């Protein structure tokens, strides 16, 4: 087990290096720099700024400087947020995004998994039809439509909940619900498929025929086994939540990773783009490593040979 974790950790280093290099290349070959603002700075000042941030050096040298900085854990400085390093910004933004993502994922699991199980257990009947209708609605509504709708109803019309910013627990409710929709619907569909496969197994029939109550059969035999594939989609789920966070943090003006990423792209704030992308990559690697480890706990047949 420890071996696997160490191996995964070592494998993450080249992956991160590739991500860092690709992103670096991507932002540097594009025309337009962070100081091309509309304010028309005198050329001397632009030259000074470029010199200060090493932007006047040839690209290969910038690359070496950049990787060396990354190796020390220094993500650089923001060109737009004065006197703030990327580390500072992300140190503040990451916990916000993690809280939001965590609450949303919890909501998604609490509603999505039972919905999928209900659909599968009543296969072909009305409850299946309505549960699947609900989950298809869930994957068909764009995040910004849910967000706009919730804001309009609960914040503007009812004035029941605050909208925007990140101050009290009340501020978490609407963004978390918005963010939970699409992973919830995804989980419901996945759980349904998984349960459908399990209910046809021989040992489920055995459990029923030995007189086990329906509840015990469903909870102990069907659900427990159909949750394996559900746990293992944490990787894709993290990707869905990151994607969702761009929209949700934009709509609700939440100072999280997603919003900083979007503004960084708009401002060509090089180091902030690179830094945010690196953190996203790290989050995805952690999620996928967790999945590999969870596989081994949940299903001994999955143990890797090597």
């Amino acid at each position, binding site marked *: 087990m420890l071996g696997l974790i160490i191996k995964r950790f070592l494998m993450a280093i080249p992956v991160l290096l590739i991500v860092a290099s690709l992103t670096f290349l991507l932002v540097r070959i594009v025309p337009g720099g962070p100081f091309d603002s509309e304010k028309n700075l005198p050329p001397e000042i632009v030259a000074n700024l470029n010199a200060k941030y090493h932007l006047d050096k040839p690209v290969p040298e910038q690359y070496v400087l950049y990787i060396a900085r990354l190796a020390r854990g220094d993500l650089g400085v923001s060109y737009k947020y004065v006197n703030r390093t990327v580390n500072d910004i992300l140190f503040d933004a990451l916990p916000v995004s993690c809280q939001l993502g965590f609450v949303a994922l919890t909501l998604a699991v609490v509603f999505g998994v039972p919905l999928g199980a209900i659909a599968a257990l009543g296969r072909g009947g009305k409850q299946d039809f309505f549960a699947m209708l609900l989950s298809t609605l869930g994957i068909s509504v764009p995040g910004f439509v849910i967000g*706009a709708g919730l804001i309009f109803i609960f914040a503007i019309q009812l004035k029941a909940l605050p909208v925007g910013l990140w101050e009290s627990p009340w501020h978490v409710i609407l963004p978390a619900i918005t963010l939970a929709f699409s992973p919830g619907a995804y989980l419901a569909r996945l759980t349904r498929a998984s349960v459908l496969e399990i209910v046809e197994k021989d040992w489920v029939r055995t459990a029923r025929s030995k007189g086990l109550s329906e509840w015990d059969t469903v909870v102990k035999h069907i659900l427990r086994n159909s949750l394996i594939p559900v746990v293992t989609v944490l990787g894709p789920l993290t990707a869905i939540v990151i994607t969702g966070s761009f929209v949700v943090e934009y709509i609700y003006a939440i100072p999280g990773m997603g919003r900083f990423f979007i503004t960084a792209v708009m401002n060509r704030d090089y180091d902030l783009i690179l830094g945010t992308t690196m953190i996203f990559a790290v989050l995805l690697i952690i999620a996928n490593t967790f999945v590999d480890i969870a596989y081994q706990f949940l299903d001994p047949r999955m143990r890797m040979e090597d």
Partner: protein
Amino acid sequence: MDSTATVKTRTVSDGKVTLTPWERLLKIPTAVAGMVIIGLICVVALLSAFNVPLCAFAYDQTSNIYLAGPSQLHPMGTDELGRDVLARVIYGARLSISIGLTTALTAFVIGTVYGAVSGYFGGKLDSLLMRGVDIAYSLPDLLVMILVGVLVGRGTIGILIALGLVSWMGTARLVRAQFLQLKNEEFIEAAYAQGQSGLNVVLKHLFPNALGPIIVALTFTVPSAILSESTLSFIGLGLSPPACSWGTLASDGWRSLRAHPHLIFFPSMFIFLTVLSFNFLGDGLRDALDPRTRLNKFK
């Protein structure tokens, strides 16, 4: 849409009567509803492309009714320049639908070729190609699209390139799995025994038999492309005026949500309706083409 080979191999006895996949599809109410809605929206989008006047005020730039709510004259109200929102939504359908369909076409071409090469040759090349797909698949679509957008620009072409890049992996996996499974079947062996060339076997035997699941996958590519485009445009990293898609319309409307909710409501509703219809159709096609599902239970 159905090649004869697909129909032959996919037809199963459903109860007493043998139904073709098409007949099975027509028995699923949600799929039929989806097809009707998609058909209507496509017809309207096509007509608007030929400047057929679909509503009286479509191109009236001189109206002085600004930001009016829905009325008999303007069923969806007007925007801040006095433009009729219904006309804008119809106009936006053209761009949104063509972006969805173009992306599906791109995914089809790249995904099929990639997956066919991987599945047909197998072995080391296959594991290498599939590892590439695994990595590309695990990245958040929107993140990749935004980064690609930085490189290729934010016009319609840029969006199409970005969408194409993130949407072919599912099809590639699917085609590869189909090919791996089919290439050991007896009828493939028979084709080789007849002396048919490898290319002939791929094009005339493997591909037609893999077509069913490919069509299902492509049906799901269209709505996800429409969603991605509208989301990107909404957060300001996709299309921007004068380009007019449902996403840019919703983005415009978002700024005046408090005072003029109709501006965001109608474009959003059409995104939702279209995406929902394609998802229903995709689910329906999948069930219709899968011999294991028994449709007669779904009443």
